[in-house]
């Protein structure tokens, strides 16, 4: 079992470090668990995931992030990735001229020891089996990464990468945004298929509907930069019924 521990994390934009966005976020995720983070827009959900992944635009002003008790904050983004951290982007970048197959190949190669060569046959075999699992057409991987993709294709591309790179912890940032219901189902099925005791998931979402398809073990409500309420999946239903104002009001009266 592995753990990802986020300890009293404070995050601000690198260019304005005195304006905190994430304000004392704490959470421990174990492999085998799926944690849903819900909350209204502008509450710091995306900032949290990017800061954990090491995006240069965000500065961690205090607190710590540890994998199996070891802080990852001094690590470069690529070292964090190779340590088992995967971020499924809300808005994935386009990489013109680089096919998905070649991109993933480079990413897999980067995980091998120096001097070790990737087994191309094995790689493609695995790639195709993951594509079958996610019901992705074979032609898809010859397209340039995210270039001219629809919202659904971009998210599917993220899930495929996740399936290939087999992270220990996946931070999924609004993976459901911009998806129609069919695409949502496919993505959810993919995540569910990867679910297991080797993977811990932090699922960031604005809406409850994704949680119909990926049933979380824990639901946390994030508001104003930290977790204000935690519970099981019933909390998601409650939120859906009562709206985020319910949490706000509860905070005020508390």
């Amino acid at each position, binding site marked *: 079992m592995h753990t990802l521990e986020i300890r009293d994390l404070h995050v601000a934009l690198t260019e304005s470090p005195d304006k905190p966005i994430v304000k004392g976020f704490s959470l421990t995720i174990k492999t085998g668990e799926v944690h849903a983070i819900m909350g209204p827009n502008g509450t710091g959900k995306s900032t949290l995931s990017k800061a954990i*992944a*090491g*995006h*240069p*635009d965000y500065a961690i002003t205090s607190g710590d992030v540890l994998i199996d008790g070891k802080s990852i904050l001094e690590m*470069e*983004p*690529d070292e*964090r*990735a*190779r340590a088992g951290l*995967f*971020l499924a*982007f809300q808005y*994935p*970048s*386009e*990489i*013109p*001229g*680089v096919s998905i197959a070649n*991109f*993933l190949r*480079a*990413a897999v190669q*980067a*995980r091998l020891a*120096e*001097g070790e060569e990737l087994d191309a046959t094995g790689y493609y075999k695995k790639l195709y089996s993951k594509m079958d699992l996610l019901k992705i057409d074979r032609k898809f991987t010859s397209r*340039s990464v995210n270039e001219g993709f629809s919202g659904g294709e971009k998210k599917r591309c993220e899930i495929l*990468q996740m399936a290939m*790179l087999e992270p220990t912890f996946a931070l999924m940032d609004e993976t459901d945004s911009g998806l129609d219901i069919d695409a949502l189902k496919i993505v959810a099925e993919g995540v569910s298929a990867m679910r297991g005791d080797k993977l811990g998931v932090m699922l960031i979402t604005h809406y409850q509907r994704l949680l119909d398809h990926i049933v979380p073990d824990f639901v946390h409500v994030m508001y104003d930069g930290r977790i204000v309420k935690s519970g099981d999946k019933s909390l998601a239903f409650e939120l859906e019924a009562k709206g985020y104002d319910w949490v706000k009001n509860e905070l005020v009266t508390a």
Partner: protein
Amino acid sequence: MADTDTLPPADDTAVNPVGGIDQAVGNFQYDVNYEFDAGTGLTEDTVRYISSVKKEAPWILEFRLKALQTFLDKPMPTHWATKDLENIDFSKIRYYLSQGQKPKRTWDEVPDDIKQTFERLGIPEQERKFLAGVEAQFDSEAAYSNIKDIVAKQGVIFCNSTEALREHPEIFKKFFGKVIPTGDNKFSALNSAVFSGGSFIYVPPGVKVAQPLQAYFRINAENFGQFERTLIIADEGSEVVYMEGCTAPKFSTSTLHSAVVELVALKGAKIQYITVQNWANNVFNLVTKRGVAHEDAEIKWIDCNIGSRLTMKYPGVVLKGKRARGEVISIALANDGQHQDTGAKMIHAADDTTSVIVAKSISVGQGRSTYRGQVHIPKHLKGCKNNTECDALLINTNSRTDTYPAITVRGDTHAVQHEASVSKVSEEQIFYMQQRGLTEAQAMSLAVNGFVNDLVRQFPMEYSVELKRLIDLEMEGSVG
């Protein structure tokens, strides 16, 4: 005489973790005993010396001497080109070096130290393939040449230009200096005065040369200018692909490379000329390349420029016959201290002619890339088409790119399209790739390879692999 250039061979310790390639690959030199050496500096005597060593016919000496005068009379083109040209010290350059060898016919006859040099070019598997059909140039003279039987059986002449002048003067003389006249520019004049080596190819009517003809060559002496002269004639309805690639050792003082390449595609013929070059960053690479495409003929230049201190090269096609087609595909990568001043020329001179230019440049660090394009479609013609696309990628904030497209179109039945773009690899892109486990340098390399990918695909397989390696090597140390 024994002129021992005493730079020791570089050791083998530097290994590129990305491509698994020896980084010092362009950095070595072997002792070569130069039997013929024209000394440094350029005078009439130098030209006479070269001509006599080569046992040339009187008309060639006359041609050379006239060219020398043209060279001396012409000013440096610094009114439009970079002032860096003024830093070339013509008195310090050696204009002729030769081992005095006859081009070799079989690999066994090639001296071991030369084999070793080829080995270190880092393309062993490819070597095996092209050894049978290659004309590889070692310094001024071809040290190795072996015309593959099948090519000769088809009646194709493939040899170095010195040999061609001796053995095939009637064909040579008919086309030599006709596409690029001596006085075209200062450096074509220089080449005409002191040329040595280079390839001569003649493809008879209707012959389609199945495998590409290749020439690998290197500069291997300090302060030594290489002035090869290549002439390719594709007779009616024939087809040929020619590939040249160069990697030069790195030296502390400037080296001048000034080639002239002339192509003639007669009616319905097709010529494809492919270049991948990786000059050391002290080389002035000032090359004139042009082809004439007759009726229904097609000339395509595929050109990749990496390295050198200054490269000035604008492959051109004169579209002389109806429905002729010209194409230039070019990739340039300028790193710190390098200036790639490249582009294309398309001169439309007949109805219904088509030209295509696709140029992509990458500027790294303080590297500077310049695109210069000239497209000329005169008023009396009908139905001409040109499509120009030039894209520049800037890697660092201090990188530089300039674009100077000159398109002159007169008449009202032509179609011309011009697109240009400048882009930068974004921080967001790099972060995205890093999040997948690639280092910043690997991410940058991948982004650059992606940028040129559609053009790299037009290179033959083994070249595109080599090109990718070269780009990876160039991108190392560009970030952080």
